[in-house]
């Protein structure tokens, strides 16, 4: 499906390439970090910095997990 033929909410977003969908992790990590730190922080002034830090660690952890799992798969295939 071409992007111009995409009907929002009726059709799934046309991102089938493997290089595209991992980027959808970024808004997910950002939103989870923002809400979690908004709940946890005592004042809202702390939230941007704290959320940025935890978002970085979420993304870093996901990348690390992906690398480890890819290594396990490669090792099993070999």
């Amino acid at each position, binding site marked *: 499906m071409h992007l111009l033929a995409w009907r929002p909410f009726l059709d799934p977003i046309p991102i089938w390439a493997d290089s595209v*969908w991992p980027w959808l992790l970024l808004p997910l990590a950002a939103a989870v970090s923002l809400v979690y730190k908004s709940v946890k922080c005592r004042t*809202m002034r702390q939230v941007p910095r704290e959320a940025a830090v935890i978002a970085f660690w979420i993304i870093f952890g996901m990348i690390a997990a992906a690398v480890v799992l890819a290594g396990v798969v490669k090792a099993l295939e070999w």
Partner: protein
Amino acid sequence: MSVVFGRATTDKSTCPCHPSSIIQRPRLPPRRGRIQYRTLMSDDRSRNVPVPLVALAAWLLPGAGYWLLGQRARALVVGISIVVLYVLGLLIGGVRLIEVPGYGDHGLPLVVAPADRNGDHLVEADPTSPETNGPWVMTSRPMEEIRNKPWYIAQVLAGPINLIASWGSVAASKVNASGMPAGYRSHARTNELGVLYTAIAGMLNLLAIIDSASRAGRPHDESLEAQPEAAA
């Protein structure tokens, strides 16, 4: 003699483990009446609002619980984040990623068909077929149907926005005059990501509901602000 804990020293006379220190104990700060811990979530409640009202408002509109408590910045950040996450999920996977309990793939109510040699089973109600005149599954076996669609439990926590999406999912599943449903069902990663986004939005709203209700029900503890060093 005063002994300072926590400092490295080579002087044995000032070391806490030296016998002379055992005889002359350091002067400790006076003990408080009770131990005070800083809570995980802040307790800056500024208005008296009933806890059930705060919880209900937080479910009806994400972030509204904080708004009722006067914490508007927190309300806006939490509410906008949750709603944007949920809408992004619908954009990624399409509205049909919401699997509504009680409704089938074609947007028709699921009913329990009469038992045959394979036992009773679920079919979509077809007005033209007398074989599908059974009780609606949500009245006869609601728990079993919800167990079959467990993501809906998390999604419905996002509030009425999920009920609107559920209505849209059922409407988009119905076959129109051209013989095709209005909306396409997503598969593979787009479906997984869309379900993940909407379910996480619901779970985050549950966190916000619990936190705002907790703040509404907690008495304002001024001692923590008066003695910040006690919790440090």
